[in-house]
Protein backbone atom coordinates (compact mmCIF):
# COMPACT_ATOMS: atom_id res chain seq x y z
CA UNK A 1 0.00 0.00 0.00
CA UNK A 2 1.25 3.41 -0.93
CA UNK A 3 1.72 5.36 2.25
CA UNK A 4 -0.30 8.56 2.27
CA UNK A 5 1.18 11.76 3.57
CA UNK A 6 0.03 12.58 7.05
CA UNK A 7 0.77 16.21 6.53
CA UNK A 8 0.51 18.22 3.41
CA UNK A 9 3.93 19.22 2.19
CA UNK A 10 2.64 22.17 0.29
CA UNK A 11 1.21 25.20 2.04
CA UNK A 12 0.06 27.15 -1.03
CA UNK A 13 -3.57 28.02 -1.65
CA UNK A 14 -3.30 28.93 -5.33
CA UNK A 15 -4.53 26.81 -8.22
CA UNK A 16 -1.99 25.25 -10.57
CA UNK A 17 -0.91 27.72 -13.24
CA UNK A 18 -1.77 30.85 -11.28
CA UNK A 19 0.98 33.44 -10.93
CA UNK A 20 2.79 32.88 -7.69
CA UNK A 21 5.86 35.02 -8.02
CA UNK A 22 6.34 38.02 -10.26
CA UNK A 23 9.81 39.43 -10.78
CA UNK A 24 9.73 42.89 -12.35
CA UNK A 25 12.74 44.68 -13.81
CA UNK A 26 15.10 43.55 -11.12
CA UNK A 27 18.53 45.10 -11.19
CA UNK A 28 21.33 44.14 -8.84
CA UNK A 29 24.80 45.67 -8.77
CA UNK A 30 27.86 44.83 -6.74
CA UNK A 31 29.98 47.93 -6.98
CA UNK A 32 30.73 48.10 -10.69
CA UNK A 33 29.51 44.58 -11.43
CA UNK A 34 25.99 44.24 -12.71
CA UNK A 35 24.79 40.83 -11.59
CA UNK A 36 21.20 41.27 -12.80
CA UNK A 37 19.89 43.72 -15.36
CA UNK A 38 16.17 44.32 -15.85
CA UNK A 39 15.22 40.73 -15.20
CA UNK A 40 11.52 39.99 -15.33
CA UNK A 41 10.11 36.56 -14.80
CA UNK A 42 6.95 34.86 -13.62
CA UNK A 43 6.70 31.72 -11.59
CA UNK A 44 3.44 29.78 -11.71
CA UNK A 45 1.90 27.51 -9.15
CA UNK A 46 2.97 23.85 -9.36
CA UNK A 47 5.36 24.23 -12.28
CA UNK A 48 9.02 23.32 -12.55
CA UNK A 49 10.82 26.38 -13.81
CA UNK A 50 14.46 25.92 -14.69
CA UNK A 51 16.91 28.79 -14.75
CA UNK A 52 19.94 28.10 -16.88
CA UNK A 53 22.92 30.08 -18.02
CA UNK A 54 26.69 30.00 -17.82
CA UNK A 55 28.60 30.58 -14.61
CA UNK A 56 28.39 34.14 -13.39
CA UNK A 57 25.17 34.75 -15.32
CA UNK A 58 23.38 35.81 -12.15
CA UNK A 59 21.29 32.71 -11.44
CA UNK A 60 22.25 32.40 -7.78
CA UNK A 61 21.95 36.16 -7.36
CA UNK A 62 18.36 35.97 -8.59
CA UNK A 63 17.49 33.30 -6.00
CA UNK A 64 19.23 35.38 -3.34
CA UNK A 65 17.06 38.34 -4.27
CA UNK A 66 13.93 36.19 -3.98
CA UNK A 67 14.88 34.84 -0.57
CA UNK A 68 15.90 38.25 0.71
CA UNK A 69 19.63 37.65 1.04
CA UNK A 70 20.37 40.32 -1.58
CA UNK A 71 18.41 43.51 -2.00
CA UNK A 72 18.08 44.60 -5.63
CA UNK A 73 18.78 48.27 -6.32
CA UNK A 74 15.84 48.43 -8.64
CA UNK A 75 12.71 46.45 -9.44
CA UNK A 76 10.13 44.48 -7.54
CA UNK A 77 9.53 40.90 -6.57
CA UNK A 78 5.94 40.19 -5.69
CA UNK A 79 4.70 37.01 -4.11
CA UNK A 80 1.04 36.01 -4.26
CA UNK A 81 -0.71 33.73 -1.81
CA UNK A 82 -4.15 35.23 -1.81
CA UNK A 83 -2.64 38.61 -1.14
CA UNK A 84 0.41 40.28 -2.66
CA UNK A 85 3.70 40.60 -0.75
CA UNK A 86 6.55 42.79 -1.88
CA UNK A 87 9.59 40.64 -1.08
CA UNK A 88 12.34 43.18 -1.66
CA UNK A 89 11.34 44.92 1.54
CA UNK A 90 11.30 41.82 3.71
CA UNK A 91 13.99 40.05 5.70
CA UNK A 92 14.95 36.44 4.86
CA UNK A 93 13.09 34.99 7.84
CA UNK A 94 9.93 36.87 6.92
CA UNK A 95 10.11 35.59 3.37
CA UNK A 96 10.57 32.06 4.73
CA UNK A 97 7.41 32.49 6.75
CA UNK A 98 5.52 33.19 3.54
CA UNK A 99 6.47 29.71 2.37
CA UNK A 100 9.52 30.24 0.18
CA UNK A 101 12.16 27.62 0.91
CA UNK A 102 15.49 26.98 -0.73
CA UNK A 103 18.66 24.99 -0.93
CA UNK A 104 22.10 26.37 -1.65
CA UNK A 105 24.66 25.85 -4.37
CA UNK A 106 27.32 25.09 -1.76
CA UNK A 107 25.57 22.91 0.79
CA UNK A 108 24.65 24.96 3.83
CA UNK A 109 23.39 22.31 6.21
CA UNK A 110 23.65 22.47 9.97
CA UNK A 111 26.71 20.29 10.01
CA UNK A 112 26.75 19.16 13.61
CA UNK A 113 23.11 18.21 13.78
CA UNK A 114 21.71 14.84 12.80
CA UNK A 115 19.68 14.46 9.63
CA UNK A 116 16.57 14.32 11.78
CA UNK A 117 17.40 17.56 13.56
CA UNK A 118 18.16 19.28 10.28
CA UNK A 119 14.73 18.31 9.03
CA UNK A 120 13.09 19.41 12.26
CA UNK A 121 14.97 22.70 12.02
CA UNK A 122 13.48 23.03 8.55
CA UNK A 123 10.03 22.96 10.10
CA UNK A 124 10.98 25.82 12.42
CA UNK A 125 8.35 28.25 11.19
CA UNK A 126 5.55 25.86 12.09
CA UNK A 127 6.58 25.25 15.69
CA UNK A 128 4.72 27.46 18.05
CA UNK A 129 5.26 26.15 21.57
CA UNK A 130 6.46 28.81 23.97
CA UNK A 131 9.84 28.83 25.64
CA UNK A 132 8.62 27.83 29.09
CA UNK A 133 6.88 24.66 27.96
CA UNK A 134 9.91 23.82 25.86
CA UNK A 135 12.19 24.13 28.89
CA UNK A 136 9.84 21.88 30.87
CA UNK A 137 9.17 19.67 27.85
CA UNK A 138 5.64 19.11 29.00
CA UNK A 139 2.29 18.73 27.20
CA UNK A 140 2.30 21.16 24.25
CA UNK A 141 6.05 20.98 23.62
CA UNK A 142 6.02 17.20 23.65
CA UNK A 143 2.93 16.95 21.45
CA UNK A 144 4.33 19.38 18.91
CA UNK A 145 7.64 17.58 18.88
CA UNK A 146 5.87 14.30 18.27
CA UNK A 147 3.70 15.74 15.54
CA UNK A 148 6.68 17.12 13.62
CA UNK A 149 8.75 14.05 14.25
CA UNK A 150 6.06 12.13 12.41
CA UNK A 151 5.87 14.79 9.72
CA UNK A 152 9.59 14.69 8.94
CA UNK A 153 9.35 10.93 8.73
CA UNK A 154 7.24 11.46 5.63
CA UNK A 155 10.05 13.47 4.11
CA UNK A 156 12.54 10.81 5.11
CA UNK A 157 10.37 8.28 3.27
CA UNK A 158 9.98 10.47 0.24
CA UNK A 159 13.70 11.10 -0.11
CA UNK A 160 14.65 7.56 0.86
CA UNK A 161 17.02 8.54 3.62
CA UNK A 162 15.71 6.15 6.27
CA UNK A 163 19.12 4.62 6.82
CA UNK A 164 20.82 7.87 7.77
CA UNK A 165 18.21 9.48 10.04
CA UNK A 166 20.46 9.59 13.07
CA UNK A 167 23.71 10.40 11.28
CA UNK A 168 25.38 13.74 11.72
CA UNK A 169 25.14 15.43 8.34
CA UNK A 170 28.81 16.41 8.33
CA UNK A 171 29.67 12.74 7.98
CA UNK A 172 27.50 12.09 4.91
CA UNK A 173 28.51 11.88 1.27
CA UNK A 174 28.06 14.92 -0.91
CA UNK A 175 25.10 13.42 -2.75
CA UNK A 176 23.28 12.54 0.46
CA UNK A 177 23.94 15.98 1.90
CA UNK A 178 22.31 17.54 -1.16
CA UNK A 179 19.33 15.29 -0.60
CA UNK A 180 19.09 16.18 3.08
CA UNK A 181 19.30 19.84 2.23
CA UNK A 182 16.34 19.50 -0.09
CA UNK A 183 14.54 17.61 2.67
CA UNK A 184 15.20 20.41 5.12
CA UNK A 185 13.70 22.91 2.69
CA UNK A 186 10.68 20.62 2.18
CA UNK A 187 10.12 20.42 5.92
CA UNK A 188 9.11 24.04 5.73
CA UNK A 189 6.07 22.88 3.72
CA UNK A 190 6.98 25.42 1.10
CA UNK A 191 4.73 26.82 -1.56
CA UNK A 192 7.82 27.56 -3.64
CA UNK A 193 11.02 25.59 -3.46
CA UNK A 194 14.16 27.23 -4.84
CA UNK A 195 16.88 24.70 -5.67
CA UNK A 196 20.34 25.98 -6.53
CA UNK A 197 22.16 23.27 -8.50
CA UNK A 198 20.73 20.34 -6.55
CA UNK A 199 22.51 17.82 -8.77
CA UNK A 200 25.90 19.46 -9.16
CA UNK A 201 28.71 17.03 -8.56
CA UNK A 202 26.47 13.96 -8.56
CA UNK A 203 26.90 10.83 -10.59
CA UNK A 204 24.29 9.76 -13.13
CA UNK A 205 22.47 7.48 -10.73
CA UNK A 206 22.27 10.10 -8.00
CA UNK A 207 21.05 12.65 -10.53
CA UNK A 208 18.34 10.30 -11.66
CA UNK A 209 17.16 9.83 -8.06
CA UNK A 210 17.17 13.55 -7.49
CA UNK A 211 15.20 14.20 -10.67
CA UNK A 212 12.64 11.63 -9.56
CA UNK A 213 12.31 13.29 -6.13
CA UNK A 214 11.85 16.69 -7.73
CA UNK A 215 9.12 15.34 -9.99
CA UNK A 216 7.44 13.66 -7.00
CA UNK A 217 7.44 16.90 -5.09
CA UNK A 218 5.62 18.81 -7.80
CA UNK A 219 3.43 16.07 -9.15
CA UNK A 220 2.26 14.58 -5.88
CA UNK A 221 2.36 17.63 -3.68
CA UNK A 222 2.00 20.50 -6.11
CA UNK A 223 5.01 22.36 -4.78
CA UNK A 224 6.33 24.91 -7.26
CA UNK A 225 10.00 24.44 -8.05
CA UNK A 226 12.52 26.94 -9.34
CA UNK A 227 15.58 25.03 -10.31
CA UNK A 228 19.06 26.07 -11.31
CA UNK A 229 20.87 23.27 -13.07
CA UNK A 230 23.62 22.73 -15.58
CA UNK A 231 22.76 19.26 -16.82
CA UNK A 232 20.77 19.99 -19.95
CA UNK A 233 19.55 16.43 -20.27
CA UNK A 234 17.83 16.61 -16.89
CA UNK A 235 16.58 20.13 -17.50
CA UNK A 236 14.95 19.24 -20.78
CA UNK A 237 13.39 16.17 -19.21
CA UNK A 238 11.81 17.58 -16.11
CA UNK A 239 11.11 21.29 -16.52
CA UNK A 240 7.86 22.81 -17.71
CA UNK A 241 9.50 26.07 -18.61
CA UNK A 242 13.04 27.34 -18.88
CA UNK A 243 14.46 30.84 -18.44
CA UNK A 244 17.92 31.60 -19.77
CA UNK A 245 20.20 34.15 -18.16
CA UNK A 246 23.33 35.49 -19.75
CA UNK A 247 25.48 38.27 -18.27
CA UNK A 248 22.70 39.19 -15.88
CA UNK A 249 20.03 39.48 -18.55
CA UNK A 250 17.22 37.15 -19.42
CA UNK A 251 17.75 36.28 -23.04
CA UNK A 252 15.04 33.67 -23.48
CA UNK A 253 12.11 32.00 -21.81
CA UNK A 254 9.89 29.17 -22.92
CA UNK A 255 9.18 25.48 -23.00
CA UNK A 256 12.09 23.09 -23.43
CA UNK A 257 11.31 22.77 -27.11
CA UNK A 258 11.24 26.51 -27.65
CA UNK A 259 14.52 26.93 -25.82
CA UNK A 260 16.13 24.16 -27.83
CA UNK A 261 15.38 26.04 -31.02
CA UNK A 262 15.97 29.58 -29.79
CA UNK A 263 18.72 31.16 -31.94
CA UNK A 264 19.84 33.48 -29.13
CA UNK A 265 20.36 30.56 -26.81
CA UNK A 266 22.20 28.60 -29.41
CA UNK A 267 24.40 31.58 -30.11
CA UNK A 268 25.07 32.35 -26.48
CA UNK A 269 26.03 28.85 -25.48
CA UNK A 270 27.14 27.03 -28.51
CA UNK A 271 29.12 29.57 -30.43
CA UNK A 272 30.53 27.82 -33.48
CA UNK A 273 29.10 24.44 -32.68
CA UNK A 274 26.15 23.39 -34.75
CA UNK A 275 24.87 20.33 -32.98
CA UNK A 276 22.50 21.60 -30.35
CA UNK A 277 22.39 18.65 -28.01
CA UNK A 278 23.80 17.24 -25.94
CA UNK A 279 25.85 20.08 -24.55
CA UNK A 280 27.09 20.84 -21.11
CA UNK A 281 27.97 23.87 -19.11
CA UNK A 282 30.85 23.69 -16.75
CA UNK A 283 29.71 23.83 -13.18
CA UNK A 284 31.63 26.06 -10.84
CA UNK A 285 34.23 24.15 -8.96
CA UNK A 286 35.17 26.49 -6.13
CA UNK A 287 33.40 25.82 -2.88
CA UNK A 288 33.43 29.23 -1.24
CA UNK A 289 30.42 31.41 -1.68
Amino acid at each position, binding site marked *: MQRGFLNQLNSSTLKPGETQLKIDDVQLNFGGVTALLDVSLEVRQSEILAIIGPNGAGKTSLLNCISGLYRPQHGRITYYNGEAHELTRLKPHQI*ARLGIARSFQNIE*LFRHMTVLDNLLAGAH*IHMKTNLLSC*LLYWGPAQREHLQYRRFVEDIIDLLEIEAIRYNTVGSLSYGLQKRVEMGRALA*MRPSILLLDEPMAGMNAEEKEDMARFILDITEEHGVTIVLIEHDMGVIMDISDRIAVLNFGQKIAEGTPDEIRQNPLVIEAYLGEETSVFPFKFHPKTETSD
Partner: protein
Amino acid sequence: MDSGIFHTTYEKDMALRRTPAQKVRLVLLIAFLLVFPFLANRYYLTLANQVAIAVIGAVGLNILTGYTGQISLGQGGFMAVGAYSAGILTARLGMPWWGSTIAACFITALIGTFFGIPSLRLKGLYLAIATLAAQEIIIWVVTHWRALTGGVDALVVPDPVSFGIRINSDFNFYWVAWSIVGIVTIAAVNLFRTPYGRAFIAIRDQDIAASVMGVDLFKYKLLAFAISSFLVGLAGALTAHYRNIVTWERFTIDISVLYLAMIIIGGLGSITGSYLGATFITLLPAVLTNLGRALKSTFPAIDSVLPFIQQATFGLVIILFLIFEPEGLNKIWKNIKDYFRLWPFSY
Protein backbone atom coordinates in the same frame (compact mmCIF):
# COMPACT_ATOMS: atom_id res chain seq x y z
CA MET B 1 -1.32 1.91 8.59
CA ASP B 2 -1.53 1.84 12.34
CA SER B 3 -0.87 5.25 13.76
CA GLY B 4 -0.77 3.85 17.27
CA ILE B 5 2.44 2.05 16.49
CA PHE B 6 3.90 5.19 15.03
CA HIS B 7 2.99 7.07 18.14
CA THR B 8 4.79 4.75 20.48
CA THR B 9 7.86 4.40 18.30
CA TYR B 10 8.31 8.11 17.90
CA GLU B 11 7.75 8.71 21.55
CA LYS B 12 10.46 6.21 22.34
CA ASP B 13 12.53 7.67 19.60
CA MET B 14 12.38 11.11 21.08
CA ALA B 15 12.76 10.23 24.71
CA LEU B 16 16.36 11.11 25.18
CA ARG B 17 17.43 7.83 23.61
CA ARG B 18 19.26 6.78 26.71
CA THR B 19 21.08 3.52 26.56
CA PRO B 20 21.12 1.25 29.61
CA ALA B 21 24.73 2.31 30.15
CA GLN B 22 23.71 5.94 30.24
CA LYS B 23 20.97 5.17 32.72
CA VAL B 24 23.39 3.35 34.97
CA ARG B 25 25.82 6.25 34.86
CA LEU B 26 23.08 8.74 35.61
CA VAL B 27 21.89 6.73 38.61
CA LEU B 28 25.46 6.38 39.85
CA LEU B 29 26.04 10.11 39.53
CA ILE B 30 22.87 10.96 41.43
CA ALA B 31 23.65 8.37 44.10
CA PHE B 32 27.13 9.84 44.47
CA LEU B 33 25.75 13.37 44.80
CA LEU B 34 23.27 12.20 47.45
CA VAL B 35 25.84 10.35 49.55
CA PHE B 36 28.75 12.74 49.13
CA PRO B 37 27.81 15.43 51.69
CA PHE B 38 27.52 12.84 54.46
CA LEU B 39 31.04 11.58 53.84
CA ALA B 40 32.84 14.78 52.93
CA ASN B 41 34.49 17.18 55.33
CA ARG B 42 33.92 20.92 55.16
CA TYR B 43 36.78 21.48 52.75
CA TYR B 44 35.38 19.08 50.21
CA LEU B 45 31.89 20.45 50.68
CA THR B 46 33.16 23.93 49.90
CA LEU B 47 34.76 22.63 46.74
CA ALA B 48 31.57 20.80 45.75
CA ASN B 49 29.59 24.00 46.22
CA GLN B 50 32.04 25.95 44.12
CA VAL B 51 31.75 23.29 41.44
CA ALA B 52 27.95 23.56 41.52
CA ILE B 53 28.06 27.30 40.98
CA ALA B 54 30.66 26.92 38.24
CA VAL B 55 28.53 24.28 36.48
CA ILE B 56 25.56 26.66 36.38
CA GLY B 57 27.74 29.47 35.04
CA ALA B 58 29.41 27.17 32.52
CA VAL B 59 26.10 25.80 31.22
CA GLY B 60 25.00 29.42 30.84
CA LEU B 61 28.08 30.40 28.88
CA ASN B 62 27.98 27.23 26.81
CA ILE B 63 24.42 27.99 25.69
CA LEU B 64 25.63 31.30 24.30
CA THR B 65 29.10 30.43 23.07
CA GLY B 66 29.15 26.68 22.54
CA TYR B 67 25.63 26.22 21.21
CA THR B 68 24.83 29.55 19.57
CA GLY B 69 28.37 30.42 18.50
CA GLN B 70 28.41 33.88 20.08
CA ILE B 71 31.74 34.31 21.83
CA SER B 72 31.38 36.17 25.10
CA LEU B 73 34.05 37.72 27.28
CA GLY B 74 31.38 39.30 29.45
CA GLN B 75 30.83 36.34 31.76
CA GLY B 76 32.49 37.99 34.78
CA GLY B 77 30.49 41.15 34.29
CA PHE B 78 27.21 39.28 34.00
CA MET B 79 28.02 37.28 37.13
CA ALA B 80 28.71 40.59 38.86
CA VAL B 81 25.27 41.84 37.83
CA GLY B 82 23.70 38.70 39.32
CA ALA B 83 25.74 38.87 42.52
CA TYR B 84 25.23 42.59 43.11
CA SER B 85 21.51 42.44 42.24
CA ALA B 86 20.95 39.60 44.68
CA GLY B 87 23.17 41.20 47.32
CA ILE B 88 21.61 44.63 47.07
CA LEU B 89 18.02 43.36 47.01
CA THR B 90 18.61 41.28 50.11
CA ALA B 91 20.93 43.61 52.03
CA ARG B 92 19.16 46.89 51.26
CA LEU B 93 15.55 45.90 50.63
CA GLY B 94 15.41 42.86 52.86
CA MET B 95 14.20 40.51 50.17
CA PRO B 96 14.41 36.82 51.06
CA TRP B 97 17.41 35.09 49.50
CA TRP B 98 15.36 33.10 47.01
CA GLY B 99 13.39 36.18 45.94
CA SER B 100 16.51 38.21 45.31
CA THR B 101 18.05 35.25 43.49
CA ILE B 102 15.13 34.98 41.08
CA ALA B 103 15.05 38.75 40.60
CA ALA B 104 18.81 38.75 39.96
CA CYS B 105 18.36 36.18 37.19
CA PHE B 106 15.86 38.38 35.39
CA ILE B 107 17.90 41.55 35.89
CA THR B 108 20.99 39.84 34.49
CA ALA B 109 18.98 38.43 31.58
CA LEU B 110 17.85 41.96 30.76
CA ILE B 111 21.32 43.45 30.94
CA GLY B 112 22.82 40.50 29.05
CA THR B 113 20.24 40.98 26.32
CA PHE B 114 21.12 44.65 26.09
CA PHE B 115 24.81 43.87 25.68
CA GLY B 116 23.87 41.21 23.13
CA ILE B 117 22.53 43.79 20.68
CA PRO B 118 25.90 44.19 18.90
CA SER B 119 25.75 40.46 18.04
CA LEU B 120 23.39 41.27 15.20
CA ARG B 121 26.21 43.04 13.40
CA LEU B 122 29.35 41.55 14.90
CA LYS B 123 30.67 38.03 14.69
CA GLY B 124 33.55 36.06 16.13
CA LEU B 125 36.38 38.09 17.56
CA TYR B 126 34.62 41.37 16.90
CA LEU B 127 31.76 40.25 19.08
CA ALA B 128 34.26 39.06 21.68
CA ILE B 129 35.63 42.60 21.85
CA ALA B 130 32.12 44.03 22.17
CA THR B 131 31.37 41.70 25.08
CA LEU B 132 34.74 42.61 26.58
CA ALA B 133 33.48 46.18 26.56
CA ALA B 134 30.37 44.97 28.39
CA GLN B 135 32.60 43.33 30.98
CA GLU B 136 34.60 46.51 31.55
CA ILE B 137 31.57 48.79 31.57
CA ILE B 138 29.80 46.64 34.15
CA ILE B 139 32.81 46.51 36.45
CA TRP B 140 33.35 50.24 36.03
CA VAL B 141 29.74 50.94 37.00
CA VAL B 142 29.95 48.54 39.93
CA THR B 143 33.08 50.17 41.31
CA HIS B 144 31.94 53.75 40.70
CA TRP B 145 28.26 53.72 41.60
CA ARG B 146 29.00 53.84 45.30
CA ALA B 147 25.52 54.72 46.43
CA LEU B 148 24.12 51.52 44.98
CA THR B 149 26.91 48.97 45.17
CA GLY B 150 29.21 50.34 47.84
CA GLY B 151 31.88 50.89 45.19
CA VAL B 152 35.14 49.08 45.73
CA ASP B 153 34.17 48.15 49.29
CA ALA B 154 32.69 44.75 49.88
CA LEU B 155 28.91 44.50 49.97
CA VAL B 156 27.90 42.42 52.96
CA VAL B 157 24.87 40.19 52.42
CA PRO B 158 22.93 38.85 55.41
CA ASP B 159 22.78 35.09 55.88
CA PRO B 160 20.09 33.46 53.77
CA VAL B 161 17.54 31.84 56.05
CA SER B 162 14.51 29.71 55.23
CA PHE B 163 12.26 28.03 57.81
CA GLY B 164 14.72 29.06 60.47
CA ILE B 165 17.53 27.19 58.74
CA ARG B 166 20.65 29.00 57.65
CA ILE B 167 20.99 28.07 53.98
CA ASN B 168 24.62 28.97 53.44
CA SER B 169 26.31 26.53 55.75
CA ASP B 170 28.39 24.30 53.52
CA PHE B 171 26.18 21.31 54.15
CA ASN B 172 22.86 23.10 53.60
CA PHE B 173 24.05 25.07 50.62
CA TYR B 174 25.16 21.85 48.99
CA TRP B 175 21.54 20.70 48.71
CA VAL B 176 20.30 24.03 47.44
CA ALA B 177 23.06 24.43 44.87
CA TRP B 178 22.98 20.91 43.50
CA SER B 179 19.18 20.86 43.30
CA ILE B 180 19.43 23.99 41.21
CA VAL B 181 22.10 22.32 39.08
CA GLY B 182 19.63 19.48 38.51
CA ILE B 183 16.86 21.83 37.42
CA VAL B 184 19.21 23.79 35.17
CA THR B 185 20.44 20.60 33.56
CA ILE B 186 16.97 19.34 32.79
CA ALA B 187 15.94 22.69 31.36
CA ALA B 188 19.08 22.89 29.21
CA VAL B 189 18.64 19.36 27.88
CA ASN B 190 15.03 20.13 27.02
CA LEU B 191 16.00 23.39 25.38
CA PHE B 192 18.18 21.59 22.85
CA ARG B 193 15.58 19.10 21.77
CA THR B 194 12.97 21.76 21.07
CA PRO B 195 12.78 24.46 18.38
CA TYR B 196 14.52 27.16 20.43
CA GLY B 197 17.68 25.19 21.02
CA ARG B 198 17.70 23.91 17.46
CA ALA B 199 17.48 27.49 16.21
CA PHE B 200 20.49 28.35 18.39
CA ILE B 201 22.56 25.53 16.94
CA ALA B 202 21.36 26.40 13.45
CA ILE B 203 22.63 29.95 13.93
CA ARG B 204 25.98 28.64 15.08
CA ASP B 205 26.37 26.16 12.22
CA GLN B 206 25.05 28.23 9.35
CA ASP B 207 23.35 31.51 10.13
CA ILE B 208 22.32 32.35 6.57
CA ALA B 209 20.63 28.99 6.12
CA ALA B 210 18.97 29.49 9.50
CA SER B 211 17.54 32.79 8.37
CA VAL B 212 16.08 31.36 5.17
CA MET B 213 14.55 28.58 7.28
CA GLY B 214 12.62 31.33 9.05
CA VAL B 215 14.81 31.86 12.09
CA ASP B 216 14.79 35.52 13.05
CA LEU B 217 18.51 35.92 13.75
CA PHE B 218 18.13 39.04 15.85
CA LYS B 219 15.44 37.59 18.05
CA TYR B 220 17.19 34.28 18.63
CA LYS B 221 20.62 35.75 19.23
CA LEU B 222 19.14 38.06 21.84
CA LEU B 223 17.22 35.15 23.30
CA ALA B 224 20.47 33.19 23.58
CA PHE B 225 22.00 36.13 25.42
CA ALA B 226 18.94 36.32 27.68
CA ILE B 227 18.85 32.63 28.60
CA SER B 228 22.61 32.49 29.03
CA SER B 229 22.73 35.61 31.19
CA PHE B 230 19.82 34.32 33.24
CA LEU B 231 21.91 31.32 34.27
CA VAL B 232 25.10 33.33 34.66
CA GLY B 233 23.19 35.75 36.89
CA LEU B 234 21.95 32.77 38.86
CA ALA B 235 25.54 31.64 39.41
CA GLY B 236 26.42 35.17 40.53
CA ALA B 237 23.45 35.40 42.90
CA LEU B 238 24.30 32.04 44.47
CA THR B 239 27.88 33.22 44.99
CA ALA B 240 26.58 36.31 46.80
CA HIS B 241 24.39 34.31 49.19
CA TYR B 242 26.93 31.58 49.74
CA ARG B 243 29.83 33.91 50.52
CA ASN B 244 27.82 36.57 52.37
CA ILE B 245 29.94 39.09 50.63
CA VAL B 246 30.15 40.59 47.15
CA THR B 247 33.32 42.21 45.86
CA TRP B 248 34.06 43.31 42.35
CA GLU B 249 37.43 41.52 42.34
CA ARG B 250 35.64 38.23 42.06
CA PHE B 251 34.15 39.18 38.68
CA THR B 252 36.99 40.57 36.63
CA ILE B 253 37.98 39.61 33.09
CA ASP B 254 39.96 36.72 34.62
CA ILE B 255 36.68 35.07 35.46
CA SER B 256 35.42 35.52 31.92
CA VAL B 257 38.51 33.82 30.58
CA LEU B 258 38.33 31.09 33.19
CA TYR B 259 34.76 30.24 32.20
CA LEU B 260 35.70 30.22 28.54
CA ALA B 261 38.47 27.80 29.50
CA MET B 262 35.88 25.63 31.26
CA ILE B 263 33.67 25.24 28.23
CA ILE B 264 36.54 24.87 25.78
CA ILE B 265 38.24 22.25 27.92
CA GLY B 266 34.95 20.60 28.79
CA GLY B 267 33.52 20.69 25.30
CA LEU B 268 31.75 23.44 23.38
CA GLY B 269 28.10 22.77 22.78
CA SER B 270 27.80 20.02 25.35
CA ILE B 271 26.01 19.94 28.69
CA THR B 272 28.16 17.08 29.95
CA GLY B 273 31.15 19.09 28.79
CA SER B 274 30.03 22.05 30.89
CA TYR B 275 29.96 19.77 33.93
CA LEU B 276 33.37 18.31 33.22
CA GLY B 277 35.03 21.62 32.41
CA ALA B 278 33.58 23.40 35.43
CA THR B 279 34.67 20.58 37.71
CA PHE B 280 38.13 20.41 36.22
CA ILE B 281 38.86 24.14 36.30
CA THR B 282 37.46 24.52 39.81
CA LEU B 283 39.33 21.59 41.27
CA LEU B 284 42.65 22.02 39.46
CA PRO B 285 43.84 24.98 41.61
CA ALA B 286 42.89 23.05 44.74
CA VAL B 287 44.84 20.04 43.56
CA LEU B 288 47.81 22.25 42.71
CA THR B 289 47.67 23.92 46.12
CA ASN B 290 47.72 20.57 47.87
CA LEU B 291 50.55 19.34 45.69
CA GLY B 292 52.39 22.57 46.44
CA ARG B 293 52.01 22.02 50.17
CA ALA B 294 53.37 18.53 49.85
CA LEU B 295 56.27 19.78 47.77
CA LYS B 296 57.02 22.58 50.19
CA SER B 297 57.48 20.19 53.06
CA THR B 298 60.05 18.27 51.00
CA PHE B 299 61.74 21.26 49.35
CA PRO B 300 61.27 24.30 51.58
CA ALA B 301 63.34 26.36 49.15
CA ILE B 302 60.59 26.57 46.54
CA ASP B 303 58.23 28.40 48.89
CA SER B 304 58.71 31.78 47.24
CA VAL B 305 58.15 30.56 43.67
CA LEU B 306 55.31 28.20 44.49
CA PRO B 307 52.44 30.49 43.46
CA PHE B 308 54.22 31.10 40.19
CA ILE B 309 54.66 27.39 39.57
CA GLN B 310 51.00 26.83 40.29
CA GLN B 311 49.91 29.52 37.87
CA ALA B 312 52.23 28.22 35.20
CA THR B 313 51.05 24.64 35.67
CA PHE B 314 47.47 25.79 35.40
CA GLY B 315 48.22 27.52 32.11
CA LEU B 316 50.25 24.61 30.86
CA VAL B 317 47.52 22.06 31.55
CA ILE B 318 45.05 24.17 29.60
CA ILE B 319 47.42 24.56 26.67
CA LEU B 320 48.22 20.85 26.62
CA PHE B 321 44.55 20.15 26.56
CA LEU B 322 43.92 22.34 23.60
CA ILE B 323 46.81 20.74 21.76
CA PHE B 324 46.02 17.11 22.45
CA GLU B 325 42.26 17.11 22.69
CA PRO B 326 40.82 20.17 21.03
CA GLU B 327 37.34 18.75 21.40
CA GLY B 328 37.66 18.82 25.15
CA LEU B 329 37.04 16.57 28.11
CA ASN B 330 33.73 15.56 26.67
CA LYS B 331 35.55 13.90 23.78
CA ILE B 332 37.83 12.02 26.16
CA TRP B 333 34.76 10.97 28.10
CA LYS B 334 33.19 9.73 24.88
CA ASN B 335 36.34 7.81 24.06
CA ILE B 336 36.29 6.16 27.47
CA LYS B 337 32.66 5.18 26.95
CA ASP B 338 33.43 3.79 23.51
CA TYR B 339 36.28 1.82 24.98
CA PHE B 340 34.04 0.19 27.54
CA ARG B 341 31.37 -0.46 24.97
CA LEU B 342 33.79 -2.82 23.28
CA TRP B 343 34.25 -4.79 26.45
CA PRO B 344 32.81 -8.26 26.49
CA PHE B 345 30.97 -7.67 29.73
CA SER B 346 29.81 -4.14 29.25
CA TYR B 347 26.26 -3.52 30.43
